């Protein structure tokens, strides 16, 4: 679905800021009727352009003060099963995202923890003990900003 018109783009942009906006409210902003707006949103959902929703929680208020990105290289010795690694890493509750990448690392993980000591526990007890883990690089997240991308 590449044929987004100007209204679709504006709808998408508005929903990436607040997914709870009603079709009526969005329609008023864009000068479209409520049913027409609803149909457009439905089409964006059905075609998979809107993949879902993300709950925006204040991590720090919930006690998760640290986010660390890990680059993981799998050990080359003793053939490792990617499936086994992916299953095991996805099961760690503190691991929020797992991406398979090409380059100097094989996987990129986003890990959340209460503080640095808690992160060390997750790293030593859960990540370093995963099947096939080789080299690990850690970078502590300081800030992040999501951009509207080509919609903006």
């Amino acid at each position, binding site marked *: 679905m590449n044929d987004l018109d100007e209204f679709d783009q504006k709808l998408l942009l508005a929903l990436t800021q607040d997914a709870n906006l009603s079709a009526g409210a969005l329609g008023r902003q864009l000068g479209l009727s409520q049913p027409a707006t609803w149909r457009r949103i439905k089409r964006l959902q059905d075609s998979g352009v809107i993949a879902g929703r993300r709950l925006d929680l204040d991590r720090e208020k919930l006690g998760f003060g640290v986010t660390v990105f890990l680059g993981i290289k799998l050990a080359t010795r003793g053939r490792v099963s990617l499936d086994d690694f992916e299953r095991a890493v996805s099961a760690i509750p503190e691991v*929020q995202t797992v991406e398979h990448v090409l380059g100097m690392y094989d996987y990129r993980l986003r890990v959340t923890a209460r503080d640095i000591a808690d992160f060390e526990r997750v790293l030593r007890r859960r990540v370093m003990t995963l099947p096939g883990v080789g080299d690990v690089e850690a970078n502590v997240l300081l800030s992040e900003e999501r951009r509207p991308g080509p919609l903006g």
Partner: protein
Amino acid sequence: MLDNLDRRILRNLQSDPAQSIPDLGDRLGVSNSRLTRRLDKLRETGVLRGQQAVINWRALGYAVEVSLRVTLDKTQTRAFDDFIEAARGIPEVIEIQTFLGRVDVRLSVIARDMAHYQQIYRAGILTLPHIADIEALMHVARIKSDEGLPL
């Protein structure tokens, strides 16, 4: 502070943010009015900030995603500010993160195909100020992406 019910509410909402209040109430065995009061309180205290739609850029024809790990020339005092300001001007940059570690800044860049990526890389990324080094990780697959907190 949060009690057990708050945590259960957030945990359930995290796994399915679009569910209605009556559905969520049924699942948790809590009346709608009690649930609504709890949600209001979570919003007032700023714990629950809202919900955002997640875009699948692949469905929009952006088949390529690259993670660019940038090291900046830190002898320039404005390196971070200048770099980030300029990176915001590239439409295909969908995420900007700063780090403490070997990497200073990471950009998520999307492109329609490799030719398009090469064009963005040459005309956009390489012209950004104060770059000392860039490494690229090409995105193959997303194995887990819920970004949920272990509540």
